[in-house]
């Protein structure tokens, strides 16, 4: 007999769907089936039971091969590395629980490291813009229950957040939105005709790198001022018609992604998108929401903020107070300038996401990768410490893209003897106190 675990939260993307149903074998060790998840989320559950999983720490040997070591040895290596290094970069956090982060920060504060998360190569520019101009926003349920105007700008949920459109933004029928899809006007702005664009009533193809100019034109039209005949490759009439559509709505939302945060203009693109949202609030109700990527990158920003007051790029090396200066205390810059002499990557993947110069420096300094899986970073780290998979084998808190906290569940037991992030980090803390003293 198998059993079904319900209300399971998916530890894949910032959509954080919490309605999954996972069928588990009778002994609670194997996942047999996964219902309601998208293809990616489903694989996240199904692959833990597949063969070839690394269940013990590994240390890189002089010949480049890896040799299994005990957790104690791995903890000793990590604590010694933290104690010896002048400046350690501790990057990642986006795929673990808030509980683990809180313990990790205790270690980081003790050792005096930089703590940075995936926002640094993702929505960091959005965070900078919000620090400049604020953000009028709402929860995804407000979108579902009220929104009749949806804009996707530089994002492609059809692929990156597969259930976003059905759960929140395009299709659901809510309290005031009883007609569902038919009651909403969808506008998609992108430089490519994406699968999300296919779902839109209006597709606006912006010339690559001209998002700022186009947003500026939207603002200008919204304020009733004239614009040139063509802006960013988009004819004036199309811009005017789109702005009128937005103004005529009762409740509108702009969703944006990497197409705005990491193209020409970066934080300024977000700044002007937020200001467009502010302007539209003079005519109707409008919100704007960042399509956060990793399932708990938002949570990392939250925990860092309530503990230190900054959402990413937190420099604890002074040990007396936290500093924050993206560009100086951001992971890619620190690695590229070779300013750090040790690196821990936890619950994320430097090798897969960082520029090659940054990754190369990481490979040359003492490094530890804490991750349930083999990934590009584990293969260039001195020590890889595998841990139980949060959201599948360990429970914990995560924050959705709209900052709503949702619990992740444990559906199966981790392989025997494997530590969780929380257990591992507590042990590193104890060992570090042993080396550095309690004071």
């Amino acid at each position: 007999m198998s059993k079904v675990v319900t209300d399971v939260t998916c530890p894949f993307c910032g959509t954080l769907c919490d309605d999954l149903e996972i069928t588990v074998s009778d002994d609670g060790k194997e996942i047999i089936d996964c219902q309601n998840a998208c293809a990616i989320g489903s694989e996240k559950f199904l692959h833990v039971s597949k063969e070839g999983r690394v269940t013990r720490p590994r240390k890189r040997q002089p010949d480049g091969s890896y040799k299994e070591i005990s957790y104690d040895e791995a903890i000793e290596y990590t604590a010694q590395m933290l104690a010896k290094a002048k400046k350690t970069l501790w990057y990642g956090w986006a795929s673990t629980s808030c509980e683990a982060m809180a313990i990790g920060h205790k270690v980081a504060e003790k050792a005096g490291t930089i703590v940075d998360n995936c926002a640094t190569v993702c929505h960091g520019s959005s965070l900078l813009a919000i620090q400049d101009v604020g953000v009028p926003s709402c929860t995804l349920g407000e979108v579902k229950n009220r929104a009749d105007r949806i804009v996707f700008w530089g994002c492609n949920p059809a692929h990156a957040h597969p259930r976003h459109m059905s759960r929140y933004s395009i299709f659901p029928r809510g309290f005031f939105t009883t007609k569902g899809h038919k009651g909403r006007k969808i506008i998609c702005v992108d430089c490519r005709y994406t699968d999300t664009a296919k779902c839109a009533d209006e597709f606006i193809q912006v010339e690559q790198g001209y998002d700022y100019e186009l947003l500026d034109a939207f603002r200008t039209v919204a304020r009733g001022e004239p614009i040139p005949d063509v802006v960013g490759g988009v004819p004036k009439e199309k811009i005017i018609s789109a702005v009128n559509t937005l103004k005529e709505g009762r409740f509108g939302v702009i969703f944006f992604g990497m197409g705005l945060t990491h193209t020409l203009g970066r934080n300024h693109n977000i700044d002007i998108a937020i200001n467009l949202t502010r302007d539209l609030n003079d005519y109707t109700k409008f919100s704007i929401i960042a399509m956060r990527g990793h399932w708990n990158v938002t949570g990392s920003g939250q925990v860092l903020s309530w503990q230190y007051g900054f959402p990413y790029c937190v420099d604890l090396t002074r040990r007396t107070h936290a500093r924050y200066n993206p560009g100086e205390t951001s992971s890619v810059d620190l690695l590229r300038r070779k300013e750090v002499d040790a690196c821990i990557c936890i619950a994320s993947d430097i090798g897969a996401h960082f520029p090659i110069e940054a990754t190369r420096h990481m490979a040359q300094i003492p490094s530890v990768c804490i991750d349930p899986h083999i990934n590009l970073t584990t293969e260039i780290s001195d020590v890889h410490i595998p841990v139980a998979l949060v959201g599948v084998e360990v429970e914990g808190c995560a924050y959705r893209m709209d900052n709503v906290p949702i619990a992740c569940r444990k559906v199966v037991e981790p392989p025997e003897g494997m530590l969780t992030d929380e257990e591992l980090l507590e042990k590193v803390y104890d060992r570090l106190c042993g080396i550095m003293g309690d004071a």
Partner: protein
Amino acid sequence: MSEILIKNGHVFDVVTGIKGDKADIAIKDGKIVDKVSSKAKTIDASGKTVMAGALDIHAHVAGPKVNLGRWFRPEDKMIRGEMRGGIVKETTRMEQGFSIPSVFRTGYSYARMGYGFAMEAAMPPLYARHVHEEIKDTPIVDEAALPVFGNNWFVFEYLKEHNIEKTAAYISWLLKVTKGYGIKVVNPGGTEAWGWGLNCLGINDEVPFFDITPGEITKGLIEANEYLGLPHSVHIHPNMLGDPGNAPTTIDTMKLAEGYKAKNKFGREQLLHMTHLQFHSYGGTGWGDFCSNAKEIMDYVNKHPEITFDTGNVTLDETTTMTADGPFEHHLSALNHLKWCNVDVELETGSGVVPFIYSPNVFPCAVQWAVGLELALLAKDPMRTMITTDHPNAGPFTRYPRVFKWLMCKKTRDEQMASFKHSGKVADATILNEIDRELTLYEISQMTRAGPAKALGLANMMGGLAPGMNADVAIYNLNPAKMPTDPEEIEKAFSLSAYFLKNGEIVCQDGQIVHSGTKRTFWVDAKAPESKQVNRDVREKFLRYYTVTQANYEVPDSYAPNPFVIEANANV
């Protein structure tokens, strides 16, 4: 646990009735006791003031909007002066932030000032998990949180039919699943209207679509509160916060409580707690003729024992405003043109965050400063009057000692008034200059200890120094027999306590944190007859309108690792 004897201090305590006389306070196993053995550790408090640990009845210290305020204001970590966050590391964790301190700084700062309890003033139920995560991480100070009900769709639907049983059954369920303490109401109806960019500007202004008025919501919630017999009363932030000429709406709101009787087993007598009353006591028709209506408001409050209030004193700082009153924050950002955050929360509430500078050079800010002080000084019953800054809205809670100084010393008030850029105009718009009253240490202890403890239904365990009560004791470097000639010494003494004992342990000594304490999370388990219809409605709303499942909504016990659960029973 060890025994402690605090000897020869000047004790100010309502519960034992000691008004500054020398008395010894004995502590054993975390409680105040009659006497201790000769082995007890002795603290010499001679020449010092001894009071029970203080209670903050209204502060925004944990949760989504507080944290949004933290991270979207990196500049709050860089304010000049002695309050600069985290420069001196005196404890095991770093301290950051001025107007919205980090959780560590929040816990340590309260302890340094001798505060043992803080009420998080507005918890959006959908974000309850976040609130409790922060509360769990905040050291030393005991905390509780008030979920917001004034814009909740369930409440609207039940109160439209004036169905108190169903409203109460829903409240009972929600307090349990969010580990909440009582009923908070913020701009009733107005925040729901803000879902469409609208607002409710009076108690009879209808809420769009829901066919109910703020007055009906408030009255219904008062009835439900007394039906449930909760330790605290309805805690309301009325409509029209911050608007010139809002005093009549405030009085209309207070009148809603007339004719009801408080029914509870906790010794609470009030029916309505009016929070940050300063923001609701204005006359005038615009910012030009803006003026104080504190006298009109206090004339009503003084005659009506069913009302308690906290002041919401403006401290003349750069701070961060944050409230579940979404439309107000939008309005404010249009006034000061600073960055604006808004978060509307599905089915429940909304919120906004905007930085604000209470400049002594700006006429309305100076009037607001005067109004807050007038309210406390015109109050005839200090037990119904509580001092707050609506942290961080009118100023950070770390400024309470400065507010005490102003209230205790007319000279400093006069100096402050004279220093305003528009001092003459401010004097004309207010009556503060005409008030000579200076609060005594005993009155301060009523307003910060016994008063809030009673209003929160905690009078049997907090806010006093009688045997059996919690051993939360603050000792200040202030000699009542020889009060300092320099009023700044009063502020200093209250800022850094000589000792603060939490649950019988010394957590702060000479203003330094020496122990991380054993903080507790308070919540209320309100037992009420179950309603099958309400259970069905809850299930249906989760299936159709919420974006999380009902099973994932509840805050598990692990979020309150050290809980203190108060059981209330419905008056059926």
